[in-house]
């Protein structure tokens, strides 16, 4: 049987191609993971810049920097770019890097398709961003693209719709690849219930994507035909209904929330055990809780539409079903805390970010339970309370999971430790900046400040100023992240050991590989069935 050293021979024979063509034609899951992560980082900056424009405008009441129409374009593009351009590709990057080594696979199952899943994205992003320069500017209806408003805008509509189609194509291809890899390429002995949590959460996420992205594609196709081909899907005069779009959109949109946060759950389920020096508490219940969250997420969508005038029985159903989600989510949070219970805790940067995740996500979850009540939601609807809520879940949940995973695995990818002091600085700046940014927005919302409006009443000024200062701290702290990544990629910093974190070897297959991992076929010839442990 070949040894690990032989794998390097293979690497020499078929090393990466040179120059730009390496990245364009690559089928290597690690290269594609890197591409996804770099793209996500770039989009995070673009979307972040748009957020800073929004916050700068809101620093004072009145109109200072941008006109209201441009402000609305910024809120719309910020959301679309962050959701589809930054967070989802970042998790796809993690999936590419980590799923094959975690399950003992040589690569992703369909490597050429993997290449295409990524290479659709930059073209889709271009198609979206060029709408800023068209007559009437980019779509300014909010990322939900509700008709009839979205049908009354300038030339940007078809470009935006085809962007959504391309993004959907990319997500579906990536999801198919992930499911096939997990079903078909697990190493002997890697049974489904032995699979690490990150793999499990991505499996459920991929199912969700396959089930809901086509519905979004269909819904925006109807927008296109309503605008350009005389159909009446969302036109009551012709027998249609604009609320139909809301149902279709949120049938996609609510699972999308879990698509963003489930892989973060997976990452946190790896970080906490390593830095608690204990196995994950209740692994099986984690798997089932994830599956239950996935199922529930598909049957609660209309809690986004309590104010449109649904029949009362429907509101009641969606209200109770939504509250149910707190149960499996509670199981997860309980298990994370129980994992730390009596553990030998240390707080390196990934663990700090995992703690940040717990605090922020649980906080966002609680405000979510508040809003799940239909009668109370009539009051919260469409004000800054909801803005604060979903940023706590999507940024505090999703992005904090990305931060944790980034610091956790960066040494495994690059072979270099990051500078711990810089990492901690990044955490504290981000954490404090974020809370300063979004905590006051709860109070603004409860006091009645509506979202998506560039102006506000003077009594909201102080909280808005705090929020804007927080936004700039949070935004500029991310430059540190780029610097940290740049240094590691350049090969600066202390060399990482193979297991990177003390005792990590007992926590998963990926830590038994060299740091950095071999370029091709990580496990070539390694007998890994002995390394797979029962948790």
């Amino acid at each position: 049987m070949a040894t690990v050293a032989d794998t390097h021979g293979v690497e020499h024979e078929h090393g990466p191609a040179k120059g730009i063509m390496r990245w364009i034609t690559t089928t290597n899951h690690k290269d594609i993971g890197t591409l996804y992560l770099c793209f996500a980082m770039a989009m995070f900056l673009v979307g972040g810049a748009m957020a800073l424009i929004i916050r700068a405008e809101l620093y004072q009441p009145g109109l200072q920097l941008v006109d209201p129409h441009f402000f609305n374009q910024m809120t719309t593009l910020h959301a679309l770019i962050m959701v589809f351009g930054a967070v989802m590709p970042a998790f796809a990057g993690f999936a590419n890097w980590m799923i094959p080594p975690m399950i003992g696979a040589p690569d992703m199952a369909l490597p050429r398709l993997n290449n295409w899943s990524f290479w659709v994205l930059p073209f889709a992003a271009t198609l979206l961003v060029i709408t800023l320069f068209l007559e009437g500017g980019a779509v300014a209806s909010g990322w939900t693209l509700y008709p009839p408003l979205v049908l009354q805008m300038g030339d940007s509509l078809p470009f935006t719709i085809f962007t959504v189609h391309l993004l959907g194509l990319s997500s579906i291809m990536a999801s198919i690849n992930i499911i096939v890899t997990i079903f078909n390429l697990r190493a002997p002995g890697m049974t489904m219930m032995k699979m690490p949590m990150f793999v499990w959460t991505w499996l459920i996420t991929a199912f969700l994507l396959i089930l809901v992205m086509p519905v979004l594609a269909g819904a925006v196709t109807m927008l296109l035909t309503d605008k350009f081909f005389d159909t009446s899907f969302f036109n009551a005069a012709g027998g249609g209904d604009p609320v139909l779009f809301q149902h279709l959109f949120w049938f996609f949109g609510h699972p999308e929330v879990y698509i963003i946060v489930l892989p973060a759950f997976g990452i946190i389920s790896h970080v906490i055990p390593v830095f608690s020096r204990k196995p994950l508490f209740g692994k099986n219940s984690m798997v089932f809780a994830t599956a239950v969250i996935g199922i529930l997420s598909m049957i609660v969508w209309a809690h986004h539409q309590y104010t449109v005038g649904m029949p009362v029985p429907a509101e009641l159903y969606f209200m109770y079903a939504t509250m149910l989600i707190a149960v499996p989510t509670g199981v997860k949070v309980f298990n994370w805390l129980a994992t730390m219970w009596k553990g030998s805790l240390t707080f390196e940067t990934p663990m700090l970010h995992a703690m940040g995740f717990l605090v922020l996500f649980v906080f966002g979850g609680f405000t979510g339970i508040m809003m799940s009540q239909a009668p109370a939601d009539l009051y919260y609807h469409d004000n800054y309370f909801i803005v604060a809520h979903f940023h706590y879940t999507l940024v505090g949940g999703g992005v904090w999971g990305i931060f944790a995973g980034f610091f956790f695995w960066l040494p495994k990818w690059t072979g270099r430790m990051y500078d711990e002091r810089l990492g901690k600085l990044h955490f504290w700046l981000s954490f404090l900046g974020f809370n300063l940014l979004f905590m006051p927005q709860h109070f603004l919302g409860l006091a009645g400040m509506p979202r998506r409006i560039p102006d506000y009443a003077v009594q909201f000024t102080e909280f808005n100023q705090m929020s804007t200062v927080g936004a700039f701290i949070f935004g500029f702290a991310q430059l540190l992240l780029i610097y940290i990544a740049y240094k590691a990629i350049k090969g600066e910093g202390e060399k990482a050991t193979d297991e990177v974190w003390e005792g990590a070897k007992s926590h998963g297959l990926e830590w038994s590989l060299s740091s950095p991992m071999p370029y091709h076929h990580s496990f070539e010839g390694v007998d890994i069935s002995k390394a797979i442990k029962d948790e």
Partner: protein
Amino acid sequence: MSTASGSYYLPHVAKWPILGSIGLFTMLGGFSLKLIGVGVGGFLMFVGALIVIGMMFGWFGEVIKEGLQGLYNHQVERSFRWGMIWFIASEVMFFACFFGSLFYIRMYVVPWLGGEGTTGVGEYTNMLWPGYAPEWPTNGPARIGGEFEPMEAWGIPALNTLILLSSGVTVTWAHWGLLKNDRPQFVKGLIATIALGFTFVLFQAYEYYHAYTEMGLTLGAGIYGSTFFMLTGFHGMHVTIGAIFLTVVLLRALRGHFDSEHHFAFEAAAWYWHFVDVVWLGLFIFVYWL
């Protein structure tokens, strides 16, 4: 250039995906420009479509060549099978979107527009459009698109149901032929299936022509026209794709490709064909009949 890992084949260079992205970008960007009235849009759309078609020829050609070289073991073929299954699952959800819209409109929206219900739009629409009698088919309270005749189920559509169901039988007969290495039966079954498929498409085209020229039934005929043409149109598109898919399989079969062991492309085409078949049954029941 490639290496076998164990025996799972992993290609190391993918030159077609980037061409596919450029093609899709050109095609969809061109289509968008055409829709907003920029002259060059139609041309760009055409060029983009050509690039996408070229990409498919190249990509599928490469995969077929590798398959014939025997690079794909059973595990690789299993990956392809799983891939096709989940691709079809996503297609099912795409149709579910339009079926769901149809059900929502027929069950809730139309009665509400007629004034039913207390918390919905009902009480207000009665003010907007007093006297609107909610019934299906409808083109809405404002009678968008004017007078129209709904499509009758028991003419061409019933015949088309028969055609598609028979084609499901012939494709299975072809599969049996392949499994016992009886190539003439395999080829005959494929030819019959493809012929039935294109007959279906021709009938559908005739039905559309009839609807547009004589029945006043167009895409603009309110919600009935919208749902009718979007559902049957996307389905017809899928039948066409499926028939082309089967034609490629037929051409390969005539060149001696496939045996009872290795015939993923045929199976994928057959699954796809059964999928469009099942969608049609839904269409026949809920769009034409009920």
